[in-house]
């Protein structure tokens, strides 16, 4: 593989932006580039990355899921309720329950979008409100607290699987990254998963080419719901204290991560690795801003908005540059000879 695909280029551009951002803050903040930074970012990215991955699957099909934040909240609460009721439950069973509840919500969304033909933004805008209302009803204003949870669950996110030079690889982060990579590989290599790209790229053509576009969209929503469900369980484990506002705003965060990560909002292109990097980028900027002494508490949001805009612009400009470079290189290399020329 001598030449870079557009997807690889995009990830390269993103990584460059990431490095630029880190380098910038390293000049501003003492003791910045160290293992602790990695530990901080990695722990909080673990949850967003899962949601952003699900969001990416949906966006790839030219849809959007605004209900993921509510799903995270609901599942966090529901799994919390399950373990407090049955503390002896096997971890795998609990994870399956989280996946299943999330997938259930995803199924509902997917059926409405794919089979009833309601635009996804409307469906999930409504679902966002409905699921959160359901959570308020279901919880009866009772919070889940760490006291209700078994120790293994509370310990899970911070269990150190291995440590490299002070850089800790914690269970939740490693699990999330493994899942992201698995989804990435599936998207790259599994033929049924490629249908997501086809459907998002040109829904009409997909239908004409004999792809079951509806089932594909449904599958994307179910997968997104399941991933959000899992994120809900991670949320529960990490924060312990679950109230009705749990997961509020995650839908926008996940969209921001995906779009920053180069997932086209019009469907058909992008990768979950990109979304992961997008999530890291947002988190890195947020986290660093809090530690940047030059900006006081009340300046942070303004600077954050400005930085995100700059990062997106830088990424767009870099991407154009790199694409042009690539085309140059292709031109320079001997192109495959067209058939007519030999006739």
């Amino acid at each position, binding site marked *: 593989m001598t030449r870079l695909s557009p997807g690889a280029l995009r990830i390269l551009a993103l990584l460059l932006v990431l490095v630029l951002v880190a380098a910038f803050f390293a000049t501003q903040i003492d003791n910045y580039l160290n293992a602790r930074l990695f530990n901080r970012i990695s722990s909080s990215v673990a949850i967003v990355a899962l949601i952003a991955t699900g969001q990416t699957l949906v966006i790839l099909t030219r849809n959007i899921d605004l209900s993921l934040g509510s799903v995270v909240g609901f599942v966090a609460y529901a799994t919390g309720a399950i373990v407090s009721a049955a503390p002896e439950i096997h971890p795998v069973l609990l994870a399956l329950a989280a996946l299943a509840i999330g997938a259930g919500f995803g199924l509902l969304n997917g059926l409405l979008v794919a089979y009833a033909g309601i635009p996804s*933004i409307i469906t999930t805008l409504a679902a966002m409100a409905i699921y959160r209302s359901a959570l308020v009803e279901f919880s009866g204003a009772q919070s889940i607290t760490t006291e209700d949870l078994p120790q293994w669950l509370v310990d899970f996110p911070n269990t150190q699987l291995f440590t490299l030079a002070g850089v800790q690889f914690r269970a939740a982060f490693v699990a999330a990254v493994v899942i992201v990579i698995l989804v990435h590989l599936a998207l790259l290599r599994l033929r049924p998963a490629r249908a997501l790209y086809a459907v998002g790229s040109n829904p009409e053509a997909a239908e004409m080419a004999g792809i079951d576009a509806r089932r594909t969209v449904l599958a994307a929503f179910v997968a997104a719901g399941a991933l959000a469900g899992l994120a809900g369980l991670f949320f529960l484990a990490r924060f312990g204290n679950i109230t009705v506002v749990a997961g509020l705003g995650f839908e926008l965060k996940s969209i921001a991560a995906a779009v920053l990560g180069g997932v086209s909002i019009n469907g058909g292109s992008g990768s979950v690795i990109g979304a992961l990097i997008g999530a890291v980028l947002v988190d890195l900027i947020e986290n660093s801003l809090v530690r940047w002494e030059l900006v006081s508490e009340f300046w942070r949001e303004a600077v954050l908005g400005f930085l995100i805009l700059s990062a997106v612009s830088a990424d767009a400009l870099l991407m154009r540059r790199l694409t042009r470079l690539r085309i140059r290189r292709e031109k320079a290399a001997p192109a495959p000879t067209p058939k007519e020329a030999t006739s």
Partner: protein
Amino acid sequence: MTRALGPWETFLLAVLVLVYAANAWLSPEFLTLQNQVNLFQLSIEKIIIALVMAFVIINAEIDLSVGSMMGLSACAFAAMVGEAGLPAALACLLCLGIGLAGGVLNGWFVARMGLPSLVVTLSTLIGFRGVARILLEDRSIGRFPDWFNALGQRGLIGPVPLGLLSFVLLFVLLYVVLERGGFGRKTYVIGVSREVAEFAGLNTARHKILIFMASGLVAAYAGLLFAARVGAVRGDVGQGFELDIITMVLLGGVSIFGGSGTLTGVGLAILIVLSLRNGMSLMNVTGHIQTGVVGLLLIASVLVPRLGARLAGRVPA
């Protein structure tokens, strides 16, 4: 009006009549003049912005920053009047200027840099809010001039306050512009395909920037209305309003992909949402149930006509 209502608008009208009838039946207070005015006043900022948001979405863009722009404008007003001691009228003008400038910023990044509006306005959603925070920090500023508060809280013409009047006038103006004017036509064309419009010699970048400017301007105006209505301003003014606004526009039949929808539909959707919420409030239905019901309405309103059409055999499978 020469044109008959489209099928979607007819459907919305039917729903509206139903909601009004049910409310009037169930609650004696519903049809009182005061309640009818309150019904609009309580969401007046959102519905005014929704009218312009219809343009933005028909143009195949989105503006998530309107709530933050509202906040920014209100906070700037409070800072100017409450802290810097500027005359309120001058401050109002300056705030509208801020709205225009914010719109130019959004529009420039979208139309000239070619970034997706979702990303740009998501950033300015954070950024504008941030500037609002810088201005007021954790303070809350009130005690505006009486004439200013009166504009937000009392009737201007009879019981009709400035906000409601603005909404009606803006609706008429924008209706004409969108459905009868050349600007509206361009909005649709660019919304359908920016390339087609560009190839036909339309200045699509300028058009988009104009629309974002209008959006910023109206959001800033709404921020001032809010300040006058509640008489005090904090950094969180308008927070989260964007979702409600977009909901109303989509319920009005505007396609999120751009190129279709009418202002009539948006107007009807606004009335439906407001009267439904108001009716539920009068019946002491609590917040999250209200939100859930509006959510269900949103789904049902798209689902029902589709099912109806399928039963009538018009839409194949």
